[in-house]
């Protein structure tokens, strides 16, 4: 069974129509791992349901 992150990169690359050379996979994976680790720092921080995003659109 493939590693879940490798499988995700493979599936996302196909879904997004990104022509990824297999030789690039280790670096892409390393970058995605860093991003997901940092994103986890953000998502584990509890915000109220009412929290608004920083950019505010004005009609």
């Amino acid at each position, binding site marked *: 069974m493939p590693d879940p992150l490798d499988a995700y990169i493979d599936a996302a690359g196909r879904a997004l129509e990104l022509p990824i050379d297999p030789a690039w996979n280790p670096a892409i994976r390393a970058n995605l791992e860093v991003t997901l680790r940092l994103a986890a720092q953000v998502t584990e921080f509890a915000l109220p349901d009412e929290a608004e*995003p920083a950019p505010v659109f004005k009609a």
Partner: protein
Amino acid sequence: MGIDAWASAREIAGAVARGETSAATIVEAALARIEAHDRAINAFTAVVAERARAWARAVDLACTKGDPPGPLAGVPFAVKNLFDVEGLPTLAGSKINRERAPAARDATLIARLEAAGAVLVGALNMGEYAYDFTGENIHDGPSRNPHDVARMTGGSSGGSGAAVAGGLVPLALGSDTNGSIRVPASLCGLFGLKPTYGRLSRARAFPFVSSLDHVGPLARTAADLALAYDAMQGHDPDDPVCADRPAEPALPALDRGTAGLRVAVAGGYFRRGAFPEAFAAVDLVAKALGATREIELPEAQRARAAAYVITTAEGASLHLSRLRTRARDYDPAVRDRLIAGAMVPATLVDKAQKFRRWYRARVLALFETVDAILAPATPCTAPAIGQQNFVLDGVTLPVRANLGIFTQPISFIGLPVVAVPVPLKPLPIGVQVIAAPWRESDALRVARALERAGIANGSPVA
């Protein structure tokens, strides 16, 4: 004082206005310096000599006719090659953009500097598509630090740092999404201003991350930063982010000193994870300002993480179609980060934008009791060109992503910052003077006071 390679923009403009020299003479000397010395530091990717000579003649003609010469009369300047320069393709440090049609119009900031009498002499090297803190460029070669050409300039505005620190021009423009003005200012020993998000127009500057992109000047003196900043202020409908508020000139109050300004040192996150020289520089500055209070920017590490997530996802969005068709024409280090960024779920980006508003509110509350906050600009002095990793607090980390650990939590919420150069030996390092939104003038006042006290010094290379 004679007008040599190290003359400030203010000295040059004064000498031109008084008729002691001409813009043509100044510009010819700058072009000769670029010809003689740029090979060593690789700052320029294009020199617009004929355009520069023509505009210098126009500035001189205006002086001869008795017209106001402008606050930057005859001052040569250059711009990071992501700014549109009429007649040149806007490279943004890339191979792919070399195929773009020549720009039809100058970027707004170029037009504003030239309207003040300054003279554009060329475009400057940068990290590919600004996704960089090193100043290295696989297509054009690395920009080199004038303090030691075997070392990085920092980036992504690497050519901007090299050109000013190397005495080729007294003024350059850069862009700063996560630290790309402040990092090269720190490693090259220069003053750099990242204004409030939305203060200066980004019109006709190649984007990277719209949520976080800023533009601003680098110079060897605080007064030159203020001069250029004042000349560039003002609303621009061509940049939807540019704020519709009146210009607030910084120069009139620049020499007022720091009386009345409450200065504190950023603690916690900003007091760990760096080499001793980064803290030594902050301590020197704090002592000179009598700043004994330490305050904590809450959740700064999380702020840096959120900026990282937004950057990689928005950067990937900008480049998605090129990644599909031209992936092999990118710098591999940039390409692989962008491809990974394209795969970040939207849920995580939205969370980061919500955290951003939370963090902004908490940090703005700090400015009720303080006017300026001091923090390191970089965790180290200039690393060697090609250096991949450094060890911070016992952890081995990639240089490329981590030179900006102290700048990212600040630009994340658009605060104005002046990076102030502290001339440690053997290499300089910068300190961030961070002010409340729209209070660039406070940060510039502090920078000028430090310069007058001999703590900050942006020139020349010893």
